[in-house]
């Protein structure tokens, strides 16, 4: 039986021949992704059930030990240490995202209110830190939080830290570093929505509602939701897995999941445990994405 002819983009061909051609196009890149992305991912899952040998090598003895350990169960009784780290990462990511949103809205309004020429300039000013290396952006806080500068001095005067010590490593510094890192990730997508805002709707809301907050939630928030949600997802997920910022600004006092994972692949040489922690992070990521997707669908239906 002769295969059915179709016309695709003006070309006369058969579906089979088209898909064969398509396969050729896909092959190289897909093979790459399979070998260096999917397969390693699967291997990681498998390794998370493996065991660490005495000298740090990988032993193919499978058990749930690593996960139990993550949950806190070890030979020495139950400890919440790892769970605390996981929880802390979620909280830090959440608060970072929240603060970034709170700071981004005024910034976006400000830029949107400029005339066309200065808008480009302001946007470029936001883009430059966005593209600057994260190591540089993070260690730069060493200077600002140094003991000689006013910030550290005020904190010393308030008794929060010992005089002469810098304002890091601690939780505060980590938050500062995270927010300054992720702020542009929220600002840029949010700006795309703010630029398209229909101000007449806002003015109508201002007539209707006395409270500024109502104006915001009823007229501004819905319109900026697309850009906002992109910004949220681009911030929350990477923030959970961040390790440069907590490493430099949090030190051993304020570890996040990223540091924990890095430790297993570095000093501790415990790949299976590291894999298990990565899986936990993966689960957190998937859950966040699901929530995001469901929220977006809800919002689409409004």
């Amino acid at each position, binding site marked *: 039986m002769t295969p059915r*002819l*179709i*016309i695709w983009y*003006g*070309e*006369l061909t058969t579906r089979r021949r088209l898909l064969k051609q398509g396969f050729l196009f896909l092959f190289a890149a897909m093979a790459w992704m399979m070998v260096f992305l999917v397969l390693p991912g699967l291997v990681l899952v498998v390794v998370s059930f493996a065991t660490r040998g005495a000298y740090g090598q990988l032993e193919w003895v499978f058990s749930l030990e690593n996960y139990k350990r993550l949950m806190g169960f070890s030979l020495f009784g139950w400890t919440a240490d790892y769970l605390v780290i996981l929880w802390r990462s979620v909280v830090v990511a959440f608060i970072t995202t929240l603060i970034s949103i709170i700071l981004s809205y005024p910034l976006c309004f400000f830029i949107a209110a400029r005339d066309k020429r200065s808008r480009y300039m302001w946007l470029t000013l936001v883009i430059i830190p966005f593209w600057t290396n994260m190591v540089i952006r993070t260690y730069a806080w060493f200077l600002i939080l140094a003991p000689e500068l006013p910030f550290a001095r005020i904190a010393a005067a308030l008794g929060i830290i010992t005089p002469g010590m810098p304002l890091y490593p601690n939780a505060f510094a980590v938050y500062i570093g995270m927010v300054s890192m992720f702020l542009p990730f929220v600002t840029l997508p949010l700006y795309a929505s703010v630029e398209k805002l229909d101000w007449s709707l806002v003015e109508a809301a201002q007539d209707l509602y006395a409270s500024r907050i109502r104006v915001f939630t009823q007229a501004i928030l819905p319109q900026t939701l697309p850009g906002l949600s992109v910004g949220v997802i681009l911030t929350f997920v990477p923030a959970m897995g961040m390790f440069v910022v907590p490493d430099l600004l949090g030190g051993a006092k304020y570890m996040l999941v990223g540091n924990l994972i890095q430790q297993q692949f570095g000093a501790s040489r415990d790949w299976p445990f590291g894999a298990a922690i990565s899986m936990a992070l993966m689960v957190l990521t998937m859950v966040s994405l699901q929530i995001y997707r469901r929220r977006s669908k809800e919002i689409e239906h409004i």
Partner: protein
Amino acid sequence: MKTENACDSEFGEQTGLVVEGVNKRFGKVEALKDVTLQVRRGEFFTLLGPSGCGKTTLLRIIAGLELPDSGRVMLGGQEITSLPATKRQVNTVFQSYALFPHLNIFENVAFGLRSRKFPKDEVNKRVERRLAMLGLTEMRQRYPDQLSGGQKQRVALARALVNQPEILLLDEPMSALDAKLRAQVQEDLRRIQRRLGRTFLLVTHDQSEALVCSDRLAVMHEGRVVQCGTPEAVYDFPQNRFVAEFLGAANLIEATRVPSGVETRFGILQLESPPPWTKGLLAIRPEWIRIRENQPEANGLRAKVSEVIYRGTNFDLWVEPGPLRVRTSSYKHFKSGDEIWLELAASELVILDEAK
């Protein structure tokens, strides 16, 4: 002028395009149902219908951008149903013009010649000629994004015509233009077609366009051709309710056949010949209802004006009983409440289909 009310025409060298029994279905939707029509060589033919009636699908099948599920398409006596678009002597003016944004006007128009490796001087000669004919010579170095809608349309036209296709297809080419420009372009298109003598097939939902440009037209509805013929024939003698209402306005009158004529809610009306059905529809266009000083001999109606609508070129009166729409010239001024005599002359009443 002889009016025709058929989709067939004489065969032989006159035949340009023949579409026979074409069916096309997209998933669950039947876009075309057993469509048959013929376009004569050198004719300006229009496919007229509302959106979704299948006219664009039919155009794409003729262009070679879709394959019919069954049926054939013949051009100049040869079957082209399965011939790819690149091999058909058919060129299309797309609704959005589809100009190549990275090529200037000259190169856009020259595309179809260069792709077939025409020699340089031949290309130059032909392209210059087409550009001149459409008033585009000064713009040949410009790029599509620098042109207005009307100019883009002319480029699309030139780009297609330069290849001297056996039939030129136009997919709602004027939908993006404003009303004033549209009227102008309709006449220009007609003149160009006359001058070149090429076969044009236009697809549109705008009935005035169809009436202005076409030698013959086919009205399509839900995937079928419902009537075909010259503009006058189709306008004056619509064969069913859809065509009567789609082309121009029509007053529809329900009628039951009686020995002396038909019985309607306006009383008994006389017809030129008895209708083929017992119960059915009559139609009379607003401009065919005559306003009389006194009661007419037959088919008269005493009516009261309920609304007057000014249209610049004429007035439309809504009268009761009915309601009937009556069109009158702008000399006479009527006002709401006036009582007038109307004649629904037998010669102007059109018999439509049977009541279901």
